[in-house]
């Protein structure tokens, strides 16, 4: 520091060093004042390493349906931390788009009565908002894993909501189009009205079973399919 700066003076145009430093835009307190103790920094360092390892593992693993067993075990081990904090992401749309079948646009259609020939469009995912697109991706993934319970529950939920909006349905279906233009039925069900507020669905390809099915009940087919689906995620 230049010796001239050390001169003591009481002239009003002269300012103390902190004031002058403030005018120059320099911080007014040294960093040592805010330095945390070494023990705290060491603990935080371990926490940081753990935290970002979990995030990287979660993001990378959820991006692949064929992750390693080690990654699977680690992800299960850190579930108590990663899930409540929201780091454990399912179907994370990191790549924006894939060429998977289940990302094709889906049209949700219904018939109001058994006599109707034409299907009426309820939702067309290609023009609907992003939530419908995510729901369609989910239904496509369910379809790939033959999880008809999940599909039926989604359909049941949609039918019930539509009914509360005054839309009466007799049948509902999810349809998609392949590259060739051929229409593919992802899911179709007949709707049976049990009471004023209660409906059940009979999937077209499983006429002996109806939904809703309570998830906690043992389900010989759907239970395995769902486990596989969750495991795959």
């Amino acid at each position, binding site marked *: 520091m230049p010796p001239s700066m050390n001169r003591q003076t009481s002239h009003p145009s002269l300012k103390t060093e902190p004031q002058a430093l403030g005018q120059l835009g*320099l911080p007014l307190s040294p960093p040592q004042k805010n330095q945390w103790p070494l023990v705290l920094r060491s603990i935080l360092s371990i926490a940081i390493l753990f935290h970002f390892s979990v995030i990287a593992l979660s993001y990378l693993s959820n991006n692949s349906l064929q992750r390693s067993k080690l990654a699977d075990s680690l992800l299960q081990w850190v579930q108590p931390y990663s899930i*409540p904090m929201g780091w454990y992401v399912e179907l994370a749309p990191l790549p924006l788009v894939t060429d998977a079948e289940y990302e094709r646009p889906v049209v949700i259609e219904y018939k109001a009565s058994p006599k109707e020939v034409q299907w009426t469009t309820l939702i067309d995912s290609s023009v609907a908002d992003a939530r419908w697109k995510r729901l369609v991706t989910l239904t496509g993934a369910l379809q790939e894993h033959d999880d008809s319970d999940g599909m039926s529950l989604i359909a049941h939920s949609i039918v019930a909501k539509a009914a509360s909006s005054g839309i009466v349905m007799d049948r509902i279906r999810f349809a998609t189009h392949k590259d060739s233009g051929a229409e593919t039925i992802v899911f179709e069900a007949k709707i049976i009205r049990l009471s004023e507020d209660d409906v059940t669905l009979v999937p077209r390809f499983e006429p002996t079973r109806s939904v809703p099915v*309570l998830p906690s009940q043992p389900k010989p087919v759907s239970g395995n399919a769902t486990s596989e689906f969750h495991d795959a995620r």
Partner: protein
Amino acid sequence: MLAEWLRPVLSLPTSWDQFWFRAGLPQRLGNTRVAIGAVALIQFLVYCAWVPDWLSGHGWFDSETGRFFIGEGLPDTGSDFRWSPLFRWPSPMVARSICILGGIASAATMAGIGSRLAPLLAWGCMMTIHHRAPWLTLPAEFLLSAGLLYLVIDTGRIGWSWRPARFDSEGVPRTSVKLATRCIQVHFLIWLACCFASMLQQDVWWNGSAISILSEQGHGLLGPIDRESWMGQAMTLVMLLLPAAAIACWSRIATYPLGFIAILAFAVAVALFAGDGLYALAMLAMSVSLLPLGRSEDRAIPYDSAILPRPIEFAAPLHQVRTP
């Protein structure tokens, strides 16, 4: 010779300490907080439009379906760790209240009111919705929830005060500021790296059809783009390279502005071709933490450089200096 080679390794603890725990000025974090708060506010306004309709007891994705899809009752699905009042009280009123509360908390975060409580509350509201229907969560929510949580470490304001801090007291470097800023930066870069890696894994990003597929799905704002068109293929390639360019530019301070430009271009592409404006805004908000701030940035230099070899000792009697 060996000592030369070992120097970077031996200096690792010091570098780590400097990177995470050296006190930092709050201007950068303050800007990031404003950006994240603003986008979170928009997010909660969007929530107001769909959450009561979708996630209430008789919504499009009702409670029973929600429970099924979190794997309730099945082993190893982690459903025990999901918490949401929307399972217990699945009324549209509760859903709407959560959205409004989250919106207010986000606005408070943006304004710097409520200190750490505001981002914590906004994060809690966002998690409540996320845990009710994790399968419906969009990428913007992943980024915003992370940003809000890191702002709980420090918001670029003072302590737990409910009042906005005065400007002069904001100029004080704090370790928690640096820690929060670094967490946001590192999290965002991990997200970008994973985004890039997952894009590389998909054929559609290699064969040039990704943008066309997005447009066919109705995501984009430009209408359908032909798979054979040169524009679709060129844009696919450019969009694939942008996250990598951003990460590469953010590896050096000198190229930080280029990194921001790359992420800006990527965000515009996401908005145009994927039609996800909120994701684009969330990426920009997170990248504010990596944006050079000019003068504010310069203010931190004296502690790092040789201009002032060591901090001034304030314990000594105050000197007086002549002002220019």
